[in-house]
């Protein structure tokens, strides 16, 4: 009987679908529909910019229905951005130039650091510069054929190390399953420098690396705190501007391409003493993002090169001397160090009994 059922099922499937025919020109039909959608959205976004410009005049007589149309517009753009980021993860490599300015609330000079970042799926690389053209750290995580490795090069000590199993970004957490304070974290989670400062209240678990750029941005965009604020030119190209609500201790502005709906620039600002941390510096981080196809040349950017003449040391040895040199807490630390219970350089409690949480990338 068992063989009979299997054979009959096979024959039944063949017979049940025997007359099915897909129409010719399927690709063209779907491509046409996608173009129509984009054109429609561009038209609506253009109208939104005009509406924003005239918002002051309309404010006096604004009606509930008009408010509702604004909400719908934002929702539409957010949906497009979220879809584009989903398609780009890991379809495209996010290349970012990140500039971070920090000002102490107690006076003193403003510190500015720059970094180049690449993110592709779970793989990432970050080069932090102490001054233009002078790298401080070059670190990255690569994974292939079931193995993964974190690489850290310290240019100030001319040393490097590799550590398997470390440095994997945290898995994306569905924001809908989390309380708003944790799920709707700002785009700050996408960028390592602010994360390295350890600003409290970000909703980032201490034992977890930040998620990938695309995932973090998607979470930030999808949590409903951003609204469309018209269009602006970014590096000579028109972009849709999304801003967070006023009054937040950490504000963010994201500009997205009206063609691809992928973010091209993100600015995150935290006020001095933000999130209930007296003495925390005011920080502004600007990331210019370019989305690159995963060609061999672009994928090579994810690999951390080991400069000739540098010596291999242990992970703690490669970074500990730098901590002594850097007295200011404003300077960044290698990202994966926040995971190490032995070093505990970020001042976080060590992992509980049983080791780090699943998904932290430490196991």
């Amino acid at each position: 009987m068992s063989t009979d059922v299997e054979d009959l099922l096979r024959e039944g499937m063949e017979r049940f679908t025997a007359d099915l025919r897909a129409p010719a020109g399927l690709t063209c039909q779907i491509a046409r529909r996608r173009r129509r959608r984009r054109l429609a959205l561009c038209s609506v976004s253009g109208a939104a910019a005009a509406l924003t410009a005239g918002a002051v005049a309309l404010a006096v007589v604004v009606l509930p229905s008009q408010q509702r149309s604004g909400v719908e517009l934002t929702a539409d753009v957010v949906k497009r951005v979220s879809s584009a980021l989903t398609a780009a993860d890991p379809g495209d490599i996010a290349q970012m130039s990140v500039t971070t300015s920090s000002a102490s609330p107690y006076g003193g000079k403003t510190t500015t650091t720059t970094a180049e970042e690449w993110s592709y799926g779970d793989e990432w690389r970050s080069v932090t510069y102490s001054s233009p053209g002078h790298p401080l750290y070059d670190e990255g995580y690569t994974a292939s054929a079931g193995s993964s490795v974190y690489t850290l090069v310290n240019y100030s000590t001319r040393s490097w190390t590799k550590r398997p199993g470390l440095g994997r970004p945290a898995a994306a957490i569905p924001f809908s399953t989390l309380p708003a304070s944790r799920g709707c974290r700002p785009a700050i989670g996408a960028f390592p420098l602010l994360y390295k400062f350890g600003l409290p209240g970000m909703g980032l678990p201490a034992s977890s690396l930040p998620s990938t750029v695309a995932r973090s941005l998607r979470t930030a965009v999808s949590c409903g705190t951003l609204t469309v604020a018209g269009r602006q030119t970014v590096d000579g190209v028109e972009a849709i501007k999304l801003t967070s609500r006023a009054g937040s201790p950490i504000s963010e502005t994201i500009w997205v391409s009206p063609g691809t709906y992928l973010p091209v620039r993100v600015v995150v600002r935290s006020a001095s003493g933000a999130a209930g941390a007296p003495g925390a510096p005011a920080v502004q981080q600007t990331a210019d993002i370019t989305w690159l196809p995963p060609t061999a040349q672009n994928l090579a950017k994810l690999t951390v090169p080991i400069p000739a003449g540098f010596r291999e040391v242990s992970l703690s040895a490669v970074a500990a001397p730098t901590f002594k040199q850097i007295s200011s807490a404003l300077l960044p630390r290698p990202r994966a160090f926040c995971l190490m219970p032995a070093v505990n350089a970020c001042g976080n409690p060590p992992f509980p009994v049983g080791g780090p949480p699943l998904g932290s990338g430490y196991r």
Partner: protein
Amino acid sequence: MAADRSTAELERFLTERADHLLRTAVLLAGNREAGEDLLQTAVERLLRRWGRIDGDPEGYVRRTLCNLAIDGYRRAGRWRQKERLLRTELRPPQDETGDVDLRDALVRLLVQLPARQRAVLVLRYWEQLTDAEAAAVLGCSEGTVKSSGSRGLARLRELADGWNDTAAMSGRNGKRS
């Protein structure tokens, strides 16, 4: 490394394989309308990633179809929002009291199975994949495929037995009358 594929290649691929993929989609979804929506969504995803897909595009579409079917994409109502593009020429449903035999009944009973069990049976008996290949498509272990397939077949046998009993009963009743 992702292959550099042209639109012409995409057209050629769909020309050659769209019928088969539509049949797979219909079996996974349980009916023609849902299967068309399922394939449409999968092909849209294929279009978005066409230039970057490394390897067999049919495998990508098959994987997408299974994932969408298992994830309950249709239940979320998202398929309903999509414009109908596919227009197939399926023969109209035949009179179920007449020409239906056990083969048809089994396929109809397939719809009553949980999505993963259904996907396993479709991959094993329609796509003719091995347990290992089906596991790769579904992103689960070979053991899961075996157990899901076994449970699905057992359930089909139960349902088929019930169908046989009913058919036999109605046949006897028919003779009496």
